[in-house]
């Protein structure tokens, strides 16, 4: 049997195939046809009406051109990018600090660790509705609390200056624990000997954080950031419940736009074309991250 230098363990062919293919086949079967469908329909004017009565026509790149020329679509891209960057950066910093804080506290409390995960565990639609009552202009508890300190009520969700940040607030509240969980897991898997050696060499805790922990966390954090990036980019349910994209489109994300312009009326051509544009956009934004994890996973061997 030929042995490859990088492959330390011999691999049985049958075993390999039985292990690797079920997942790949499931993914291929469930995604290949839909992807082809999306590509094809994006070039047509297919709607519910033409589906039921016939008459779907090829329109070439019209759906794409219309979308790119629509200033509402461009604005929704801007909103989405702004939101994604702010949310991912804040969540990453906050979640990582939380993980370091808890992990560094000598004996990490099991209870606290679970408690901080709670926001992530809440059913998203329900908890967003709860936030809506809390943000309420008239009777919302946040305004009541502000009132105690003598601050005038804020129309959180319907004031054009605050709506965006209110939605952002909810997203950070819910997903900073996500970053916390993954960073915490990574911290737990970190070899302790490095730290011990450094401590013996007289490095203080800040130096150890700076020179050992953070470099170690770089790789897992790439994954965490990429995951958050992808998920935040398609933000929809919070906006749909809290603001419906208003006031004056200030919270309308790309998905919200696709939903309102295409999906809701089964305007399939428009939905497909804008979805593809959105996918390209996120691949573009996530490119540095994708490349770095790609390098880690693929090209190193």
């Amino acid at each position, binding site marked *: 049997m030929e042995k490859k230098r990088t492959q330390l363990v011999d691999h*049985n062919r*049958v*075993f390999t195939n*039985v*292990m690797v293919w*079920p997942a790949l086949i499931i993914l291929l079967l469930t995604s290949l046809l839909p992807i082809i469908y999306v590509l094809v329909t994006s070039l047509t004017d297919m709607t*519910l*009406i033409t*589906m*039921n*009565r016939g008459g779907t026509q090829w329109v070439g790149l019209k759906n794409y051109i219309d979308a790119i020329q629509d200033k*509402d679509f461009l604005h929704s891209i801007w909103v989405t990018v702004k939101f994604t960057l702010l949310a991912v950066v804040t969540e990453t910093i906050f979640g990582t600090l939380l993980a370091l804080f808890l992990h560094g506290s000598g004996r990490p409390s099991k209870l606290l660790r679970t408690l901080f995960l709670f926001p992530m565990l809440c059913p998203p639609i329900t908890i967003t509705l709860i936030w*809506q*009552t809390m943000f*309420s*202009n*008239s*009777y*919302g508890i946040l305004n009541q609390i502000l009132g105690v300190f003598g601050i005038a009520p804020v*129309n959180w*969700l*319907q*004031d*054009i200056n605050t709506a965006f940040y209110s939605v952002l607030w909810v997203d950070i509240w819910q997903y900073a624990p996500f970053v916390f969980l993954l960073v915490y897991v990574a911290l737990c898997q970190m070899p302790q000997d490095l730290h011990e050696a450094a401590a013996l060499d007289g490095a203080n805790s800040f130096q150890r954080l700076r020179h050992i922990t953070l470099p170690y966390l770089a790789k897992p954090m790439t994954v965490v950031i990429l995951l958050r990036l992808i998920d935040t980019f398609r933000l929809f349910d919070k906006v749909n419940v809290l*603001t*419906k*994209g*208003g*006031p*004056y*489109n200030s919270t309308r994300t790309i998905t919200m736009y696709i939903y*309102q*312009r295409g*999906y*809701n*009326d*089964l305007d399939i051509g428009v939905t497909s074309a804008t979805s593809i544009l959105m996918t390209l956009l996120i691949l573009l934004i996530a490119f540095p991250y994708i490349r770095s994890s790609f390098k880690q996973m693929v090209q190193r061997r």
Partner: protein
Amino acid sequence: MVLKKVKRGIVGLLAASLMISAAACGGGSKDTEETTAAAEETTAAEETEADAGQEETAAPAADSGETVTISIAARGGSHVDAIESVKADFEAAHNCKIEVSGYEAADLKKNIMLDSTKPTGNFDLVMADDPWMPEFTEAQIFLNLTEAGYEADSDLVQQCLDIGKVPYGEGDQYALPFSGNVMFLFYNKDLVSDVPTDWNAVLAAAEQVQADGNLGYVIRGQQGNPIVSDWLPIYWAMGGEVFDENWEAQVNSEKGIAALELYIKLLETGANYEKNDLVAAVSDGKAAMSLGWPSWYVSGSEASAAYAVIPGKVDADSETYPAGMIGNWMMGVTGNSGNQELAIELLNYLTSAESQKIMADAGGVPTRESVLTDAELVEKYPHFPTLLEATKASKVRPRHTNWSKAEEVLGAELSAAVSGVKTPEEALAAAAEAMNDVIK
């Protein structure tokens, strides 16, 4: 030795994954078999029915077999409760099962549309918000009730019945009004003694309330459907029309600008609330007036909130237009239903006077004159006569397959004006342009 172990491992893995996939598909395939069986039965039943054309006595054979299931797609909430409250009698009388699936409104629409693409639909009866009607009939979702032998029932309020006709108000009947939603002027009895009957009087009353230290008029200014529904009645009361006969948007007319300016003045006397807040504020006496839907207040009829018809004129002596937005929920039989005859019967049953009386207690809003004026019910629900009056003075939103998109762009621009980002002129000019774009 090693090989043997590998083999065992593989077999174990295979067995495990097989078992799991079997478990996964187990529930599925069983259901599939049932479906196929049911489908076969339906064909059999159809054949029997065809035979029954010559031989009437053979018909009950289909009845004595498996019970038929009639599936209704409805908007979740009070509508489902209402149907559930009356379905038992019909099930007993027709030996069938009625299954009501409630969805959130936007999801309901998508589900009905998707279901209509199947040769035989899953849903037999579907509910539709009134602005969906043009799109639904254009997509041939509904069965033509007139062709199926439906005779207009003059007890159903004309304005409601008209929504179910295609073209609007004159053509064949495709759906019947299930829930008689129409917008009202809501006010707090303690804050407003004389109900204003024109919009300038509304403004004056609101300013008075504001001067006394409460909120005058509360708008429902959330982008999208809420702000459009909240503003259009004012525009209509000024005699404005959203589109002219050539589907050119008219919202940037002088009337439109005046209506939006008035709307902003009204906002200045009060606040911009989301619906739950708005209802609480008016019922509690924190705010004096707003517009709203009837089902918001049904439960709290002892509260100091009261209902009036939306004013249809600007000044005391100007011309009166229909201004109350009608938003009935319609119900129709699907064109691809496998049980059309029974579904039609159920539709008639659900919209009958007897059913509507019972459903009123479950949060239903009647659409029949006889029910709305029924002495017993009026005692319990004193706003029913006002509802009838409001329905008769109501107006439908433009009948166009792309209305939901037009509403969406109009909503965004109204939101811009209310937020102070644009002047009313700028906002409405942009709205008209965008509406012309999406309507074509």
